């Protein structure tokens, strides 16, 4: 989890951007800014949980290593849920 005090490292920011892009495309995360600068919003956390549930990962709502690793895997472009 990112501590609220310290500013996000550029790597954390990249991970957050990658996650937002992934969840927008495959889990219907609404477009637009997610929460305060660099802090995962509740909507983002909820979508992270949805993705972790789909892939049978530990449902934490956090961008842990396994979750990020899976987001970087080559895959099909069709969303995992809904229309």
């Amino acid at each position: 989890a990112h501590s609220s005090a310290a500013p996000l490292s550029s790597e954390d920011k990249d991970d957050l951007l990658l996650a937002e892009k992934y969840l927008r495309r495959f889990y219907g995360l609404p477009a637009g800014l997610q929460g305060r600068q660099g802090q995962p919003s509740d909507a983002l956390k909820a979508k992270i949980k949805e993705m972790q549930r789909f892939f049978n990962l530990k449902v934490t709502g956090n961008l842990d290593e396994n979750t990020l690793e899976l987001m970087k895997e080559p895959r099909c472009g069709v969303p995992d849920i809904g229309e």
Partner: protein
Amino acid sequence: YNHFPRHLKWPNTDVTFRIVNYTPDLKKSDVDRAIRNALNAWSDVTPLTFKKLYKGNADIMISFGSKEHGDYNPFDGPNGLLAHAYPPGEGIGGDTHFDEDEDWTKDSSAYNLFIVAAHELGHALGMSHSTDPGALMYPVYSYSTGYPLAEDDIEGIQALYGPNPNSRKVKPRPDAPTKCDPMLSFDAATELRGETVIFKDRFYWRLHPQMPEPEQTLIKSTWPSIPNKVDAAYENPEKDLVIIFSGIRMWALNGYNLVDGYPKYIHKLGLPKTIRKVDAAVHIGDTGKTLLFTDEEYWSYDEASGTMDTGYPRSIEDDFPGMSDEVDAAVYHYGYLYFFHDHVQYEYSYTSKKVIRIMRTNAILNC
């Protein structure tokens, strides 16, 4: 398995398709064959038939394009998104697009067009993504050979269209092993940079002290160059290498990378040519020896000198009292050897030289 909302499907089972353009990565005939075989995988288990058109509008229009390719659903360059397809319906419904920025192949050297086409055409017929990592309709790419549909996929497509009236039987791709199956046995186990990796069928579980839930992944997703069936594996931490055994060959992995010069034959270690398979392997850090188990015997390999110790093979039963069986897999932790055979795990103490505990194999997977 999952269907699209409202269980979208083709109203009749005679579906048309057209290959609008071709990738330069493969011969035209290879693309034609990959697409035809991918469609056959679905028609084998349903009443669906697929007629190829060469002009005009077909139900399933198949094309290769990169980045923004006309549907406001752009691809992203190499890797990442490989392809996408639209559920059955008018117009763009059923259309299937492949990312031309990928390297399309007919083997495992890059992205296998047949595998991806079988998945995408599943979407074009009404299948959405499956959560079963062993299913074809699982969203993440993985290479495999043989008939591509798993039981999960077959159940899903037959829920939409029914079975093949000629009831041609196909042997589904085996589903993913379930970790808490009480009869679960292992193919192989090894340490890997502080984690424990357990191989079973086409999958492996990764165990990490800080990760309470073992993570199941397809072998090919991580190590495309090693076979889908692992017999034995061990880590030589001094060299930061993991040796994988399958049949009479062995592969050396440094993390995710295959070490140059591999695979090699197992007989390079000094095993006689009569040995055609290693059942289990384990490196004993305290002695610098690697033990290789084959049937009822085992060998001791000295990593430092790179030679087989003399006086081997020896009987497993004689040297490891309490271990009366052959060994499927073995790992070494803090002075204890853990032997796995079928659904039973034996904890052998190196100091007291005997088996001191017997558990279920999948106790190591928190079951």
